[in-house]
């Protein structure tokens, strides 16, 4: 066997040994990394796979009816009062204009 061939064989064996060593050293690190990813996944809230109905509405989700009833009645009062006020103002203005025109006519 020539010297050149022997050197090549030694290099090949060394490369295989280095690859094996690298694998032995990095495999646990990969395992730790993978398990930490899995753990992190477990910590995250899981997406819902189905909707589950409940009979009782949670208290935080309930709207107090009194607020809606008061808003409805309040709106009616405000809208009607506003309209009556606007109508009275317009009537007063037209009556004044009419009186002015009629006095001019005389």
């Amino acid at each position, binding site marked *: 066997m020539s010297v050149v061939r022997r050197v090549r064989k030694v290099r090949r064996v060394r490369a295989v040994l280095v690859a094996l060593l690298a694998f032995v050293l990095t495999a646990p690190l990969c395992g730790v990394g993978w398990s930490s990813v899995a753990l992190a996944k477990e910590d995250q809230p899981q997406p819902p796979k189905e909707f589950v109905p409940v009979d009782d509405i949670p208290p935080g989700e309930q709207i107090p009816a009194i607020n*809606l009833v008061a*808003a*409805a009645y309040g709106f009616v009062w405000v809208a009607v009062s506003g*309209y009556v006020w606007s109508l009275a103002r317009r*009537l007063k203005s*037209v009556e004044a204009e009419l009186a002015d025109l*009629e006095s001019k006519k005389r």
Partner: protein
Amino acid sequence: MRTLTTPFIALSAGMLFVAPWIINGAPYESTMGLVQKVFYFHFPSAILFLAAAIVCGINSARFLFWRNQRADGWAVAAAELGFLFGALTLVTGPLWARKAWGVWWVWDTRLTMSLVLFLIFAGYMMLRKYGGPGSDRLGAGMALFGMANVPFIYVSVNVWRTLHPMTSVVPTLPTDMGIPLWFCFAAFTMLFIALLNLRASLEHQRARVEALYLAEDQA
């Protein structure tokens, strides 16, 4: 008629002031609870909203086909009240629906057609204000379309499946729910008649002012 307007408004305001106490005495509805009490203001507003469309349509027809100028004044008055009572209906309804149905609005036939009628009134008023010459006749045509909507709005809940209560609810009301309803209905109707009369007289006075200005220009 004008002299009766102020007592009518005062009486209806007094009745509407007392109404919450009478409504408070009415029993709770079994499935909707307290929020159903919006009904006592919502129903009269809705009926008068439709009544305004009919008054506006009839007077528009009188103006359009028989050239009755005073009828045009009544049509304008009814359109403005239709807008007001439509707004009351379309605001109180969703406030009730949010609790009873879980949503503010559904695009069912009654709600959609009521919104269309409200928009017709809004369009009519804008046309009369900014439309210039000829807008009175165009507006009268619009009002006829608005009136044509009324029977469809009324029967829609009986014909198409919807969340909205059917028309059979009111005739079958128990007495202790019927008394506050008809009390509020009487108050709203008196208010409607008084405001219609006042608004029409405003329109008639405006017509007189215009006639006087025209006479002044011609002189």
